[in-house]
């Protein structure tokens, strides 16, 4: 096999493992990667692109809601719930953890706490976005070189 492709595949596998080791993603991400197969070879990029495309609007809407004169904590909670759902489905554990803290602040109706949690959620998502976009670039490079994207180790 083309040694360049092998090198890229190894880089991809190591990078994917590092996302979990760093606590950015969790094992659910491995399961999502493992779903990619010949019947849908673009499954991972489609799912991640959908997630990365939807989240900024939701995070922005949280910011707008927090800036209202009278904060609607029920509305905030619903939006956080949406972010939690998607994040847990793709294994973005750092975003999920930030959302759990946010839910707690909403429950307390702690506006100052909510602002801090919003910042943490926003930063967590920014990190996930950066890392997943880099992974998708590696995936594109492997395919362009005629290689197959490796499955996660142990799957």
């Amino acid at each position, binding site marked *: 096999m083309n040694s360049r492709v092998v090198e890229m595949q190894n880089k991809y596998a190591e990078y994917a493992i590092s996302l979990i080791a760093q606590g950015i993603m969790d094992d659910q991400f491995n399961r999502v990667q493992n779903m990619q197969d010949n019947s849908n070879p673009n499954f991972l990029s489609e799912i991640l692109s959908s997630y990365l495309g939807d989240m900024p609007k939701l995070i922005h809407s949280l910011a707008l809601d927090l800036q209202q004169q009278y904060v609607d904590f029920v509305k905030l909670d619903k939006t956080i719930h*949406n972010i939690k*759902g998607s994040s847990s489905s793709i294994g973005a554990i750092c975003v999920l953890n930030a959302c759990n803290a946010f839910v707690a602040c909403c429950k307390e109706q702690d506006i100052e706490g909510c602002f801090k949690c919003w910042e943490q959620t926003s930063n967590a998502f920014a990190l996930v976005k950066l890392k997943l976009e880099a992974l998708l670039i590696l995936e594109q490079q492997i395919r362009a070189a005629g290689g197959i994207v490796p499955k996660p180790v142990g799957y």
Partner: protein
Amino acid sequence: MATTKKFMALVVDDDSVNRAINLKYLTRNGFETEVAKNGQEAVEYFQMGYKFDLVLMDMEMPIMDGFQATMEIRALGVKSLIIGMSSTASQVKIQEFVSAGLDDFYPKPMNMAKLIAIIRRLED
């Protein structure tokens, strides 16, 4: 593939990522599938006479949520296996959701262990 039988499933979720993942799990394991983006669309499937062995019902959705949709589907006399799913940790909300007419509830996300448990119930 976890089953050789041909089951029909309806995935009800307003989130495209969750829908895609649930659909992938189901189709990979031999299910025929349809999709509803909210509870109202789900109810309409049954009102039009569609039959499903399994409904994966999200809890919080716009237009009509999972609680309302489950109650309305049961009111139509539907006996399909309805499994609620949500990322909520509120035991009160989960219990209310179950009381609306669910057969069971699983926290999100879907995985093979949960799907196998669901298939076993369908095969019984």
